[in-house]
């Protein structure tokens, strides 16, 4: 008879048990419930050609900053300055586009305005990170200070330079600038083209006729909306917002780095126990500063998508976005204490939040403020669930 040893106590698990231990399982289940609920309550309208575009726009928007916030949280730090960073970056780009580059460098192009803004926001990210690691203060306090600092700075700059708290009516740069189109234009048009092409085949023979009643017409419009056809029988929607492209890029890179690379291991190690990480030669401070900069990078991409989409900016942009980003990260299974979580979970969380934030547009009888009620509830539930998952993984220690 073989001797029983310590490792025998770890039971072999079926794949279902393994799945249930994954950090993203909770957010996946919530996401499925929300997709089904929204689909039913909106009679499918949330996922017709336009509904999908609008939903994905907000999902991608929230997702971009949530990925930055999530990596930082896995490394054990918070960033409350995401929202003000968005406002600052938007202000910086819009003002440069309207008033020209600083120091008399002449007219700004979308790319130069973006590049200079990115340098500034990365600088702020570096500064925040450096203050946090050097002082050993809680990132909550340091980034709260930067929340006020950047909010104030944004408004002051708007007033000083533009005599107003916003810039609006910028020319539509998307027409002449490839870069602006990449940020604020449309992407994956071929998907909608294909959708329309298939829609036409399905809808062939359907048309509006003089003898139709109003109800019949509405039914037909509804039906066509799922085939990407408008009431003139032309293509209805031409593509997704460009921020989807950036969300995919940022999420894919973040996933790869976190799950598959050395830096990913450093991020986990830093968040789990930074002293032991340091003792093993992990450059803890560099990891943290880098992630504060990455968070600022995500906020700047968010702002650029917004500015080049709407050709405007104002001082109130990005309001509450830092809190939403953190909430998404938590719902996505990131532990508040760091060291654990996955980007896939964050993507599920972003989908859930985006759908709920937009639900008011698809379900007319619902009050938009329910969004926050939902967020509060789900957030609390997620924290409890995460704690359970953590205990399950660490064997209750």
């Amino acid at each position, binding site marked *: 008879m073989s001797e029983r040893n310590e490792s025998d106590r770890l039971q072999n698990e079926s794949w279902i048990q393994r799945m249930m231990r994954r950090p993203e399982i909770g957010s996946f289940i919530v996401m499925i419930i929300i997709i089904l609920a929204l689909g039913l309550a909106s009679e499918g309208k949330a996922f017709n050609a336009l509904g999908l575009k609008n939903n994905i726009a907000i999902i991608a928007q929230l997702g971009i900053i949530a990925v930055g916030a999530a990596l930082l949280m896995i490394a054990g730090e918070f960033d409350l300055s995401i929202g003000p960073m968005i406002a600052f970056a938007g202000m910086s780009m819009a003002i440069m586009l309207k008033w020209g580059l600083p120091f008399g460098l002449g007219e700004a192009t979308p790319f130069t305005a973006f590049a200079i803004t990115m340098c500034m926001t990365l600088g702020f990210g570096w500064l925040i990170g450096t203050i946090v690691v050097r002082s050993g203060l809680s990132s909550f306090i340091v980034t709260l200070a930067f929340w006020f600092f950047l909010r104030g700075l944004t408004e002051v700059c708007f007033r000083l330079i533009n005599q107003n708290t916003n810039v609006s009516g910028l020319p539509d740069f998307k027409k002449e600038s490839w870069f602006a189109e990449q940020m604020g234009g449309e992407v994956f048009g071929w998907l909608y083209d294909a959708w329309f092409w298939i829609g036409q085949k399905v809808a062939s023979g359907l048309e509006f006729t003089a003898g139709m009643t109003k109800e019949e017409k509405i039914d037909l419009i509804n039906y066509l909306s799922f085939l990407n056809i408008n009431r003139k029988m032309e293509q209805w929607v031409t593509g997704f917002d460009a921020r989807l492209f950036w969300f995919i890029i940022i999420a894919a890179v973040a996933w790869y780095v976190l799950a598959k*690379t050395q830096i990913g291991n450093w991020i986990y*190690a830093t968040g*789990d126990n930074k002293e032991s990480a340091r003792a*093993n030669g992990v450059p803890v401070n560099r990891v943290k500063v880098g992630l504060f900069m990455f968070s600022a990078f995500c906020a700047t991409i968010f702002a650029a998508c917004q500015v080049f989409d709407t050709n405007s900016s104002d001082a109130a942009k990005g309001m509450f976005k830092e809190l939403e980003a953190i909430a998404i990260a938590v719902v996505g299974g990131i532990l508040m204490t760091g060291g654990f979580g996955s980007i896939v979970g964050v993507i599920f969380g972003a989908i859930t939040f985006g759908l709920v934030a937009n639900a008011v547009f698809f379900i007319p009888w619902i009050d938009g403020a329910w969004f926050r009620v939902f967020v509060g509830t789900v957030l609390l539930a997620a924290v409890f669930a995460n704690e359970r998952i953590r205990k399950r993984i660490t064997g209750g220690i």
Partner: protein
Amino acid sequence: MAPKSFMRVENITKKFGPFTALNGVDLDVYPGEVHALLGDNGAGKSTLIKILSGVHQPTSGTIYMEEVKRSFRSPREASAAGIGTVYQDLAINQLMSVTRNFFMGRELTSTLGKLKIDEMNQIAHDEMLKIGIDFSDPSQAVGTMSGGQRQTLAIARAIYFGAKVLILDEPTSALGQKQQMEVLKTIKRVRARGDIAIIFITHNEIHSRLIADRYTFLALGQVIGQGTKSELEGGDIRRLMAGGAEIKDLEQELAKI
């Protein structure tokens, strides 16, 4: 003929301001031997190992590694020179897997920093098997392991990354009886390799007697007794453990109260 010492520490002193933590300590460690470093709380054991592992720099004194004079300005330099320290907290992260802990900070990577996760799993498994634990699943979180297994992981890691002198800081404290024995077995297996010198810091006289070949006793920052197992007798060990006080004296003192 005495075997060549692996690491020799001569006349190390360490002052923290007006406080003298170590006052001229000598130490010799030999490959394939367990050198027990004993002493009461505050005797200077921790300061000594922090100097050996590069955390602190000595105020004066020298460290020789294989007869070459060395000085370590950082833990990294000490570990590059072959000094592997396993602290009480083990420097292990609970939420991370065995493999990710094993290679923490020293990951094997291919292009673009990609982890060679299969190779790493294999190495972690093999290295831990060598000193006594067979892990079926190196991707399991360390949080699920027992205290003794965690010790083994930390020791295996130190050896794999080139420790020639393995410093174990109270590896048996805070463990249950059975796990203490597991750790002692692990230490014996490392000793049996013959090429690694072990410095074993402990409070526990019984544990030191079970595996140590050589002893150094510290009290108030000074060496109060040193020698091989055969040179010291059991009574000596107990007396020196108590910082030179006789157990009989202690008994009398206790009785007075």
